[in-house]
């Protein structure tokens, strides 16, 4: 879902009149304006509340605009935020000095304020367009190479309804992956994982992890080894030996479902507890696992839970993107709240569509802080 976010501008200036004039205009034009009256105050705000662009005065007491820019450039998490100087010092030497510090522009304070706002809007738009273009090109390349971390659709089956939700974060792919692998004996492996990290880094490594997991499962099917616990332990052992994966960790949920009997085996690695809805009692229970994240330690404490899905029973598995959210600038993780939120959907006859209506909205996309995945299984 493509989401248009409100653009956030940080204004750093010791002049309260400039703040009053510019912030009123920015808010009128539907921008969010974060005000800092000194470079020091800006540094304190920036770590927790990074804007889309910083507009900073040059002449400020204590730390001037150039020193502020230099300090930002030393911080890996802040140096790439687009930076523009707004100042009454308009000599060419100062302008050159600002541009040497990779400031995108140098706006004279005498410029009419509406023009300043238009200029900022243009800068942000042009940066966003470049991002979108880069995303499109990488996406096209990934498609051409058949690199997919989630399938086009879930398998269709006479005994079970399978489906899933996968939502990118701000149109970036992330570390979540989903797959279904059928055996010739009427069994199906359902896999969901999340490479810990964000955006491209996690997305890149998701293919490495998924390749290992697919190969391990196929080899185990070939050997007749159908214990999810053994499979996950083997995957962990092999992954730990791959130095290319560095410090990357990954969650994993592996479910093995017998289509005829409804018998289900489950092993988890640092994943969130699954939700199991029992039609007979109309109750929702959490299915926990003891396994550690993949690549954390050689002994991952993996276990295997076995249970049977009866007619009308449903399973939900989901990644932390579903349980983490950002409300009014405050990021939070709340598994229990998510469970309370989705549980009523499990009691309806059209659960998956109800879940989609609840979870795939503009509001949930705006408050998300990671890619979000959910797997749905229902015995028919």
């Amino acid at each position, binding site marked *: 879902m493509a989401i248009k976010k409100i653009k956030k501008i940080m204004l750093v200036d010791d002049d309260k009149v400039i703040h009053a004039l510019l912030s009123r205009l920015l808010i009128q034009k539907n921008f969010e304006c974060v005000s800092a009256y000194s470079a020091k105050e800006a540094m304190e705000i920036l770590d927790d509340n990074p804007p889309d662009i910083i507009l900073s005065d040059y002449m400020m007491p204590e730390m001037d605009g150039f020193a502020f820019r230099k300090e930002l450039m030393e911080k890996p998490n802040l140096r790439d935020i687009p930076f523009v100087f707004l100042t009454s010092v308009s000599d060419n030497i100062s302008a050159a000095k600002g541009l040497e510090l990779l400031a995108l522009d140098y706006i004279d304070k005498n410029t009419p304020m509406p023009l300043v706002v238009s200029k900022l809007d243009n800068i942000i738009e042009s940066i966003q367009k470049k991002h979108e273009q880069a995303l499109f090109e990488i996406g096209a390349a990934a498609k051409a190479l058949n690199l997919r971390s989630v399938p086009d659709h879930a398998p269709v089956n006479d005994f079970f309804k399978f489906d899933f939700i996968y939502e990118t974060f701000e149109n970036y792919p992330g570390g979540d992956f989903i797959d279904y692998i059928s055996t010739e004996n009427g069994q199906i492996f359902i896999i969901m994982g999340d490479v810990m990290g964000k955006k491209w880094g996690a997305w890149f490594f998701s293919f490495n992890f998924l390749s290992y997991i697919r190969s391990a499962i196929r080899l185990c099917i070939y050997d007749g080894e159908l214990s999810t616990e053994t499979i996950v332990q083997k995957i962990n052992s092999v992954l730990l030996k791959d130095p290319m994966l560095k*410090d990357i960790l990954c969650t994993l949920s592996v479910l093995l479902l017998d289509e005829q009997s409804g018998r289900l085996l489950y092993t988890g690695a*640092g994943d969130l507890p699954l939700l199991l809805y029992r039609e007979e009692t109309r109750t929702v229970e959490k299915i926990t696992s003891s396994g550690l*994240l993949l690549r954390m330690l050689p002994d991952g*404490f993996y276990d295997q839970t076995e249970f049977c899905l009866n007619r009308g029973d449903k399973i939900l598995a989901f990644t932390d993107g579903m349980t983490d959210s950002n409300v009014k600038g405050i990021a939070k993780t709340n598994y229990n709240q998510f469970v309370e939120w989705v549980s009523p959907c499990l009691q309806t006859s059209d659960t998956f569509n109800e879940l989609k209506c609840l979870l795939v909205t503009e509001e949930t996309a705006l408050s998300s*802080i990671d890619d979000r995945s959910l797997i749905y299984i229902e015995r028919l």
Partner: protein
Amino acid sequence: MIEVQYINDYTLITISDSQANLQNAEMFRIEVLKVLDTGNKNLIIDFSNVAYVDSTFLSVLVAILKAAMKEGGDVAVFGLNEDIAHLFSIIRLDKAFKIHTILPDNFSDIKS
């Protein structure tokens, strides 16, 4: 990003930011590894100021644990808020990190 205090046989590392996430995870790794490099191998990471921790930061925390274990040390955590403590529990990080609500006098006190 962090404040470092040396308390008897361990080093207390307090995270000063309220969001422990992708933005500051790398900086945290660099700064804590510097502390480890100076021979301080038993660390307690203080999360008292932290309202939210994301998966990138947790990966870095595990990398620091592994680096400390390699040196014969260990890493414990302290001051987790309710949400973060619950997260550690549901994704089983409590099996790898000792979680403390009170700062011990000595690191050895918390290993028993």
